């Protein structure tokens, strides 16, 4: 295995974590104590590890979603909207057809979610390919529209009449995904396995199929791809559709695996954190597995900060995420540091030779 592709993300991760922990010193905490809480919170017991895996599950799907679009040179800022409509459609299928037996029921609810979220993301793909609208702006718009539609649906036609909470009816029992054994009460479910499978499958598709090749060519050089006879517009639209379908997978863990209903506002920006996940993984599906795990651990570890420290709260997760993104994003900074280092080495050598 080559080291270089792992080196930069690892450096970015360590930089982000170190700066974030240093900031806690300013707040009057011992960074080591905070680090201890993070590690214990994320991995301290089987239950904690289970919670880390539970938070990893949605990030796996949104990370893959952003990665697929990224591969085709598109920025999917819209995973948040896609996941909310996808999970909603999944929930709808799961409470409307409660009598479908088990393996088939999962296929039906998954398909419902993937279709709706895929079509939703496809709008942005179509606008980009056919009308030239920037996908970042259109997906931001689609996020807000999706949020409005979801809250309308949850508060009106899909409302659970038995509660005051903004949530839908409960899903049919046969649609519920089994919990993974060995993690105590942590709601980590088979959705995690589906996500891991998806990541491996995508990784294989990227490397070994025509579709993977087309995605990459379009992403790297649109004009060259067009010249080579690749239907650029169709590839872009398909990339967004697949990205949307992947985002709907968040519903598997959150709805079918744990809450068993759609609760309004269940996602703490999983779609946006997915951008960080994909970025750290550099769009590589296998990398997404590792990076989703790390961000899941960060999410779980920081939730314990509220109770176990005096001055720091779970919001530290956002700061660390931002620092990691900044460190990954500032490619120029790394390049410049590298240049400076190598020129210093050269000058040292030069001086050594001269003297």
């Amino acid at each position: 295995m080559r080291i270089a592709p792992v080196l930069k993300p690892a450096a970015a991760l360590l930089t982000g974590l170190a700066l974030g922990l240093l900031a806690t010193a300013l707040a009057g905490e011992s960074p080591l104590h905070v680090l201890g809480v993070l590690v214990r919170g994320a991995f301290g017991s089987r239950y904690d590890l289970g919670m880390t895996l539970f938070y990893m599950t949605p990030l796996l799907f949104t990370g893959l979603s952003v990665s697929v679009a990224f591969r085709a040179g598109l920025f999917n800022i819209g995973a948040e909207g896609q996941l909310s409509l996808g999970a909603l459609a999944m929930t709808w299928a799961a409470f409307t057809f409660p009598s479908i037996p088990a393996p088939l029921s999962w296929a039906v609810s998954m398909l419902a979610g993937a279709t709706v979220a895929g079509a939703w993301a496809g709008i942005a793909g179509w606008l980009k390919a056919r009308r030239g609208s920037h996908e970042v702006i259109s997906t931001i718009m689609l996020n807000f529209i999706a949020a409005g539609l979801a809250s309308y649906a949850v508060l009106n036609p899909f409302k659970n009449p038995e509660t005051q909470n903004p949530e839908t009816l409960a899903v049919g029992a046969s649609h519920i995904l089994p919990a993974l054994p060995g993690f105590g009460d942590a709601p980590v479910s088979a959705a995690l396995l589906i996500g891991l499978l998806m990541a491996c499958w995508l990784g294989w598709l990227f490397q070994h199929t025509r579709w993977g090749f087309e995605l990459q060519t379009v992403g790297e050089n649109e004009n060259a791809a067009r010249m080579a006879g690749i239907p650029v517009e169709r590839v872009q639209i398909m990339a967004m559709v697949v990205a949307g379908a992947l985002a709907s997978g968040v519903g598997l863990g959150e709805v079918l695996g744990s809450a068993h209903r759609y609760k309004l506002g269940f996602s703490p920006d999983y779609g946006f954190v997915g951008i960080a996940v994909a970025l750290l993984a550099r769009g590589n599906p296998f990398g997404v597995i590792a990076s989703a795990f790390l961000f899941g651990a960060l999410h779980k570890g920081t939730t314990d900060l509220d109770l176990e420290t005096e001055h720091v709260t779970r919001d530290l997760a956002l700061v660390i995420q931002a620092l990691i993104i900044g460190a990954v994003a500032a490619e120029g900074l790394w390049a410049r540091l590298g240049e400076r280092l190598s020129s210093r080495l050269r000058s040292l050598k030069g001086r050594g030779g001269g003297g």
Partner: protein
Amino acid sequence: MSDLIGILESSLRIASPLIFAAMGGLLCERSGVIQIGLEGLMIVGGFAAAVGALQTGSAAAGLAAAALAGVVFGYVYAELSVRFRANQIVAGTGMNFLAMGLVPFLSKVLYENTGTTPSLPLEQRLSWHWAVVLALGIVAGVAWMIRSTPVGLWIRFAGEHPAALESAGISPRRVRMRSVIAGSALAAMGGAVLSIGLASAYSRNMVAGRGFMALTALIFGKWRAWPALGACLLFGLAEGLQVRFQSGAIPVQLMQVLPYALTLVVLAGFVGRARAPQALGRQD
């Protein structure tokens, strides 16, 4: 009649923070730098204004504190996206995360909670009449500067033909750095209007997507100052109407969606052509 005036007044109030942020976004984007960090800038600005006003007892100082926070954030973003050529969407997303995490972090350090800053007495708040006047003045100023001053010309060239600007001996990157910093200060002041103008404190989730709404207004206004002002007022009106007609025939959630749906239609070029600055997001 008084009902109508009431609705117009409330739309103007709601629009005023958006106007600041949209003009800030305009300065960044016309110079060629995508600014999806308006949300984060409004968050830090809102918080900094509340802190500044609390510390000094003056609303003007609060507004200045917000502008200063915007300058600092804008500087970091400009360094990342202009000097270090980071992808602007990525860097902007990072800045939003940073604001969302840093503000509760500081709030906990200063006030022992992550929710709401201590409440300001009425006389230390920014009068919203002033906020509206200031907002309109800024629109006029930005429109005039972009259209009729040398600096405005540089900004337009940095956003459209950076190579031409370069050959005239002016560094497009320097123009962009300054545009982004100035624009970020304006956007942060939009957050200040929200926290110490329309409310009496900064509270968590107060910005709630308004930064993105300002970006939407900017695009709806096709990256021009007066049309963007029109879009802000229109969005303010839509929100004002929602508050009035909570139990109307059209569900509230669908009304909320309207500005974004309209912008999507405009963006797709179905209503005239929304042309972004040519060099927007490019690294040259």
